[in-house]
């Protein structure tokens, strides 16, 4: 039996029917067509499915879709304001902080949760914040640098949590 789920997705009301047992990642990708969170492991180890739920980074592959009911969900699709990129996105581009790009959406969301909570993180704060996100192209160093450089950049109008 399908379960109706409504929540806020990137500031807009979203509704979909979830299959019993379906995880939030599948609902976002197949049910709502937001393909920015990726499937990497399905067991909560790689972090590429990371989304923000009420401002906290969560692994959407481990979250039952129906538990998103009434929550505020944010994905990489909502980072940019139209053509205007979020400072994190700009910093990732300029700092070569993505190679294959598959871990990038999860990295960005983990970093956004950090910067929303702590606008001036230390290097250790950044490393801690992305410790649940794996990058196999071994680009951690530029990723850490990009997040630090985004933190130094002027705050972006869309960068704050709603």
């Amino acid at each position, binding site marked *: 039996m399908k379960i109706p789920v409504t929540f806020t997705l990137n500031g807009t009301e979203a509704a979909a029917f979830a299959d019993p047992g379906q995880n939030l990642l599948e609902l976002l990708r197949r049910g709502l067509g937001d*393909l920015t969170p990726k499937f*990497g492991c399905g067991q909560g180890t790689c972090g590429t499915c990371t989304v923000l739920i009420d401002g906290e980074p969560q692994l959407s592959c481990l979250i039952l879709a129906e538990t998103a009911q009434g929550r505020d969900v944010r994905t990489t699709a909502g*980072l940019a304001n139209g053509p205007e990129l979020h400072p994190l*996105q700009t910093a*990732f581009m300029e700092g070569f902080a993505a190679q294959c*790009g598959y871990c990038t959406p999860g990295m960005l969301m983990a970093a956004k949760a950090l910067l929303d909570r702590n606008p001036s993180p230390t290097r250790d704060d950044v490393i801690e914040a992305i410790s649940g996100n794996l990058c196999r192209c071994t680009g951690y160093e530029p990723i850490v640098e990009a997040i630090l450089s985004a933190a130094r950049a002027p705050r972006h109008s869309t960068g704050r949590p709603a």
Partner: protein
Amino acid sequence: MPVEFRKDLFADERDDNLVEIGKPHIRQDILGHVTGRSPYYDDHLFDGLLHMRCVRSPHHHARIRSIDTSDAERANGVVRIIRPSDVPQNMNTLLALLNFGRDDEPLLTPEKTGYRGEPVLAVIATTEAAARDAVAKVKVDWEELPHVLDVEEALKPGAPVVNATYPNNTFDYHDRYDHQKLRFGDTQAAFTRADHIVEGEYQMSPIEQAPIETCGAIASPETNDRFVCYTSTQALFFSVAVSAKQTALPSSRLHFIGGTVGGGFGGKVDSHHEPLAILGSMLTGRPVKYQWDRAEEMQVGAPRSGERWRIKDGVMNDGRIIAREFTGFFDAGAYTRLTSYGVQKCTGHLPGPYTIPNVASNTYCVFTNRTPSTAMRGFGITGVDFSIECHMDRVADAVGIDPIELRILNAYRDGDMKAHRRTAKNCALIESCQVVAQKSGWALSHDAMAQSSLIGGGIGWRGEIPETVIDFAGEIGERRSNWIDPEPYAGAKQRELVAAGTENEHPATGNAPQREDMVIEAERLGFKVSDGPPNAMPVPGPAPATPPAPADPPIPVAPVPAGTVPPPPAVPTPLNGTGAPRRSTGPGPSLPAAARGAPQPPQPTPEPHPPAPAPVPEPALGTPRPAPTDTAPPAAPDTAPAAPEPAQRPPRRPGVSRFISGPRGRR
């Protein structure tokens, strides 16, 4: 006929003005990455998408007695079960497209599985969960077979036969040898005059590529009688060609879309998802996704092969390495994939970035009941380089010389002749060592700091191909009957000299004859019987009378003035005493007694496909095993080849691979 390589054409155009290093660049694809819009294969939505999962062997090595799918067929959401007999061309090997190796691996295995996780059936269902449930309902009656997981165990007599296509548990090189050879000079003679012999053994593990995006493909019927396939492949044209072959569709009916890969590192070359997804789409008329989960990626995904290396060096007191022998074992797992090629790539790399006048290697591509191994980031090179550099430290220790200075002393210099008979160019090891020493505060002697890759290379013996001793150990058929130990020279029953200056024209000296329909020569070496000794090498005239072996020449450590050319390296006296390079009819004087006890007459015509030791049973589920199209009858060896047999190979048909069978082709 020398081949002209692009890298040679542009060798003089190297730009040393490396102004880009350290400067950030904006990748052209990065906007898609940071906005999450880069289209990976799974980012394409289809109505009515079906999901495929495979029934896999839980055993290292097992025979299928029977399969009961009745419960699975009745399970909720199951649309179709694909069996081996549903695959139009079930057998394939990835490099068949390059005419390298025989079709040895089924897409779905009908009868006997060779590794844990090998797929035997594919279940297509409306959801992934339904496909998983149905897979769990398939009942396979397995007969577990003895398995072998170690490369050298696999080479022992009586070891389980892992892969019926290669019953010796070794890949057959050039249809003739159970290993890939490299021969350059005479290591045995050099060892006898070396001050030190340094030996070492090194073992590398398999390494999983572990991309964050697991391997997969989605195929769907298009409206124009084609199938579209979105894939994570790293090798789109491999995947197109393999899919065309295995689905028996002309490639013009396949529309492949790839190019956005969520990490590959070599693990997305093997092209198993695309043909299965397309086949599922053909059989159901609907879009089908075949995606590995993480557990499959780690267990079934082909890793870098594990390698075992034994290295033996002959070293002089001053640190000059005058001989180096390798015995290498690549663990191919149960099927060839790309390991056969990794071995050849490796052989072209030996003996590492060092100019050593006598080099020999025997490298085996061994089948074991492990997960098949394939490409991964410098495969064939990385493992042996690890061994070589460990060994260099061991040599430095044995001789009592600084390890970096040892490397500088023996390093390639521009113009040096490498063991695979190409000239070293653009060498930079000496400079790299100097910079490393400088940056790390490691004191080098003034002499070592004064060296340069541009100076002293190619002078005298350094630039020449020495007279080379080769042997015929490990010929296919010999191993099957005698199981000779896999060591360089130890089992050599016949030795032969190849004259100095001879280039890559013999499989024993390290370079393969190229794919037959690309070779210009009328006849390929090794399959040709002409006048003269059987299997004669194309040696340009008799070798010059060999002078007595001089002492090992010193490596020039400073610019050598013209005219003071160092003497050539020691060369052995020809075995047959005439100086004429030919295959000796009897054992040489230095051969071990065991080899003398078993003289074997020359074989005029090696068998391209040796007969299997036991009849290969027909696949249980009805997929015919493609027969090699030109299998030579295992004729009794002609012990007196007075009238040489003509070559047993069929006329060459350009563009037609004898390894590709089935209905593929001109449609």
